């Protein structure tokens, strides 16, 4: 469950990317955040992912108020979130498997258990045969799916994805969306920022539309 009220984010320099925003996302929801370029979609995801801190207002994620949290506590909160970045942030100095292992190394999981879980995540996104490949050798769609594997390997309760289907051909975009639907079906809250919300057959995801940092009327 994520609740924002009077949420405001002002970047250094003074620009207000999110202005007095109020919203509520229930656990297990699937939500699209849309809006024009510069509307504040990425900023809102970063706030929910505890990467940027609110300037004022409150933002409660998994029962914790991010406005009031100590900096040292943030890493532990992030571990329960799965983040998929606009630029993916894969590491090109190691294999696909090692990319997926990183979150598990961070929580100090036993190496054997970590290997097992990382392979399971790669299997889920259909990349198990490519585990030894360097991400640079993967296609755009495969890289996106690798980023998803890394995001879900910690079994997060919330998945936050920034433009996960931009730059993908329709077929790859479909595969990626299907993955999000599959995770949502097992009660993972899925929040996707996108210019163009996709229709999903048989489902009616919620839509939050931003306009210059506010909810669009």
């Amino acid at each position: 469950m994520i609740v924002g009220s009077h949420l405001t984010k002002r970047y250094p320099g003074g620009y207000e990317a999110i202005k007095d925003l109020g919203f509520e996302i229930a656990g297990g929801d699937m939500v699209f955040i849309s809006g024009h370029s510069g509307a504040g979609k990425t900023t809102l995801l970063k706030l929910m992912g505890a990467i940027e801190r609110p300037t004022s207002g409150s933002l409660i994620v998994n029962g914790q108020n991010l406005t009031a949290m100590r900096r040292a506590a943030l890493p532990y909160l992030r571990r329960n979130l799965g983040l998929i970045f606009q630029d993916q942030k894969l590491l090109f100095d190691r294999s696909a498997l090692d990319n997926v292992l990183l979150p598990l190394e961070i929580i100090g999981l036993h190496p054997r258990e970590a290997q097992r879980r990382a392979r399971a995540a790669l299997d889920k996104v259909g990349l198990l045969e490519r585990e030894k490949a360097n991400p640079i050798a993967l296609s755009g769609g495969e890289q996106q799916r690798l980023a998803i594997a890394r995001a879900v390997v910690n079994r997060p309760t919330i998945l936050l994805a920034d433009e996960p289907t931009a730059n993908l051909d329709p077929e790859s975009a479909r595969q990626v969306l299907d993955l999000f639907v599959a995770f949502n079906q097992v009660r993972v809250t899925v929040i996707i920022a996108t210019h163009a919300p996709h229709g999903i057959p048989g489902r009616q995801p919620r839509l939050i539309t931003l306009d210059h940092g506010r909810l669009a009327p």
Partner: protein
Amino acid sequence: MNTWLRQHLAAFRRALRRLWAAPLNTLLSLLVIGIAMTLPAAGYVLLDNIKALGKSASGVQQISLFLEAGANRDLVRSTQDRLDAAVPGQWRFVPREEALDRLKSSEGMAEIVASLPRNPLPDAFIVEPRDGSPEALETLRETVAAWPGVAHVQLDSAWIKRFDAFLKLGRLAVSLLAAVFAVGLTAVTFNTIRLQVLAQADEIQVARLIGATDAFIRRPFYYSGALQGALGGLAAGLLISLGLSALEEPVSRLATLYGSSFTLHGLPPLQLALLASVGAALGWLGAQLSVSLAIRQMD
């Protein structure tokens, strides 16, 4: 195995991997660290050997007591009595004839001695008191010098004092040298760790985004710094051992020529371990300073 231990092990493994990933850099910084540690450590070993040399050369403290020239039998006898009474320990009488014979037998002196019109040497005593401390010897010297018929008292421990002062000076010099090189070693680690942090900037950034604590990010660099320092210390130990084994033969040959059984002694394992630990501690320190700065700059 608990999580804490496992995380440290993992950090250690990552540190090893990073050192291994840039073998040439690693080798070069190990060499620099090793040499930086070799100089003060070699100085220490040298002093240690000189100290041992001093001990082996001056096992017994002696006082030489010279009577006035032309002293008669009575004076010799009364001095003997006084020595018996005043000095616990041993003494030996060296008549002037014996002294001259000895002089004659030393190389190149025979002719000179033969050319002398008469024996210029006085009767003498060599005293080895049981208490050989510099203070006791000094008191004894003053007492003996006041006896009648005693022309001169020579304390053979004077050079021991000088030797001691020289050793102290040497030790101070080595300590200063060690302090300077400790700063240098810390600076070298600071720099290599800084390069490592910059090379790992992407991983650090991503790891933070997905929930890594500061400790998780810093730990491998600390281990890396400590590991470099420890290996550098061992490299220094190796260099010193090589140097010593090269010197060993010539030194013992020289010692034999001087009728001494002196041999060089190297670094015992305990001191090698100490060298490695000091290196590790300084490496850890350098890494800590470096990582703090680099990560602050990254924010």
